[in-house]
């Protein structure tokens, strides 16, 4: 069994490129070039240099002593929250902006939900002096005002998505429509391991720096490259894909995914795609997605704006379907408590997305000598208002 992408762009039965013909030239251009470009020494050099000097990599692998004591196991946190702009998202946007430059593109578009990917995109566009347009659902613009202000300060144009449910899924639709209307000079920086092939693979490879570093850091600290478990939260699945990547083929390393259960898996307000989703097509990709019996895509719910995507990346559908990944889903309440606990025990305020991964201890007990690595995908600054409201701080 392989967990990597095949030459047709599928992970098992999931993936592919189900796109209108209008997008074919753009996506095909990317498909033909992305691996070649990524393998160029000059690309590698610039990418690594920026990750080091601009993003601040390697991000620390931190042994969380008090959290480990509480859950009676060895917990390491991979500190993506310490990256420039505060989350793992920037690993991907650095990679994609370099790709866009090498493909001769002049204009960058992106979608964003919580605004983290929008900020990370606006940041690299400022860095490279490129025009940046970010689509964001009208409702999310109201919910995430500080990130909207950041994007504007960074020189990006934020366009409200007014169609459909006016959140992440619709922002993605609008970005795709923009790309259809601007097929020649524009590159679309997708923010997660989703979309038509080659996006899931390209985003995964840019994020795979996370597991690459985990291996060498763990070797130093524990004398082994391989933990017993790697754990991440899943929205579209980019921080998870990066955290799992170098462990996919080593079945001794357990893979754990935590989705957002919202107000409860069967409450009607949830984003637990692996449980609630069925195979279908969303944003050019065959994967598990939440939909009606009639095949209309439904609106997910989570307290965290970065996890309420109605699908998951095709890699994760494959990990779920084959049983290679263990999937859990944490409710709003469980996630918020886990976030508060990390703040109290370790002095780290996580993004609410990340708090879902930390809620894994509600569902799984680890052995005392297990080495458990959790992707701390982002910091909680952007979520302070949510935490304030929730805990009456």
């Amino acid at each position, binding site marked *: 069994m392989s967990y990597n992408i095949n030459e047709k762009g599928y992970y098992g039965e999931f993936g592919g490129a189900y796109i209108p013909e*209008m997008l074919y030239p753009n996506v095909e251009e990317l498909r033909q070039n992305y691996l070649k470009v990524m393998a160029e020494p000059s690309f590698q050099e610039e990418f690594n240099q920026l990750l080091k000097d601009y993003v601040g990599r390697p991000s620390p692998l931190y042994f969380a002593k008090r959290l480990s004591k509480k859950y009676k196991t060895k917990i390491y946190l991979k500190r993506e929250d310490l990256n420039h702009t505060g989350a793992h998202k920037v690993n991907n946007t650095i990679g994609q902006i370099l790709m866009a430059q090498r493909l001769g593109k002049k204009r960058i578009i992106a979608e964003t939900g919580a605004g983290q990917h929008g900020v990370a995109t606006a940041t690299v566009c400022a860095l490279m002096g490129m025009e940046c347009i970010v689509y964001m659902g009208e409702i999310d613009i109201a919910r995430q005002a500080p990130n909207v202000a950041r994007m504007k300060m960074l020189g990006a144009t934020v366009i409200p998505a007014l169609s459909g449910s006016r959140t992440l899924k619709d922002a993605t639709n609008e970005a795709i429509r923009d790309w259809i*209307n601007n097929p*020649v000079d524009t590159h679309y920086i997708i923010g997660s391991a989703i979309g038509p092939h080659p996006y899931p693979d390209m985003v995964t490879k840019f994020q795979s720096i996370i597991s690459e570093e985990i291996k060498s850091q763990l070797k130093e600290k524990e004398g082994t490259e391989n933990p017993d478990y790697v754990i991440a939260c899943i929205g579209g699945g980019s921080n998870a894909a990066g955290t799992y990547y170098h462990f996919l083929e080593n079945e001794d390393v357990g893979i754990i995914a935590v989705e957002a259960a919202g107000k409860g898996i069967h409450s009607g307000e949830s984003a637990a795609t692996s449980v609630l989703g*069925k195979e279908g097509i969303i*944003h*050019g990709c065959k994967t598990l997605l939440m939909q009606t019996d009639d*095949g*209309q895509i439904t609106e997910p719910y989570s307290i965290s704006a970065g996890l309420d995507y109605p699908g998951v990346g095709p890699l994760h559908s494959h990990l779920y379907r084959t049983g290679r990944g263990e999937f859990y889903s944490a409710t709003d309440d469980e996630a918020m408590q886990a976030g508060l606990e990390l703040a109290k025990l370790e002095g780290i305020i996580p993004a609410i997305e990340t708090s879902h991964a930390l809620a894994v201890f509600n569902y799984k007990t680890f052995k005392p000598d297990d080495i458990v690595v959790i992707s701390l995908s982002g910091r909680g600054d952007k979520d302070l208002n949510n935490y304030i409201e929730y805990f009456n701080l």
Partner: protein
Amino acid sequence: MNRIQQKLHEHKKLLSIYFTAGYPTLNDTVTVIENLEKAGVDMIEIGLPFSDPLADGPTIQASSTQALKNGMTTTVLFEQLKDIRKTVTIPLIAMGYFNPMLQYGVEAFCAKCKEIGIDGLIIPDLPVDVYQEEYQTIFEKYGLINVFLITPQTSDERIRFIDSVSNGFIYMVSSASTTGAKSGFGNAQSNYFERIAAMNLKNPQIVGFGISNKQTFQQATQQARGAIIGSAFIKHISTNGIANLDQFVNPIIS
């Protein structure tokens, strides 16, 4: 011979109209089809509404959202259309995104189309390569013509490939854009229309996207066999209702 192929043999420029099933109200579908035929339209594309129509501009998005609110589903549409061949003889094409068809079951969907008398399908997000590998035999088993899109950006090589897989007509998207009316066609479009005409493709071409009136219809059909109007028609029925559709059709074909 399939009704679409027969129609393509007629020596006239064909006018095809797209509308969203279940719009403006749920049970308007059949009336719209019958009135369009009476008004002299050559072919009809029945749009299956989808929650996330990636290739569509604001007008068709809005009509799709409304149709879904009205309660339109694949099953409801098939039920509405079950006697359509008692009153309508022109070719009917179902146009929709792939996910609802996938959920219905591609083979079941095709079987139902044949039973009703649907002649072809347009599925913008089902790529020609996937169609050829996985679905072509099913479509052929039920005598359905699948129509593919080309755009000004499509390479000659790919157009030839699409031509080789097609057995009805090729849907020529007029410009790199989502659906919706433009103010008119310029030089870029004329060049594109001429380039395609000069390729002498096996399948005739019908132009769509951006056609809204007699002028754009005539420009589009100078070389091509016909043209498709969608957004402009939907705008018309949302203001003027679904009776007297010759008010919309006559000025274009007269």
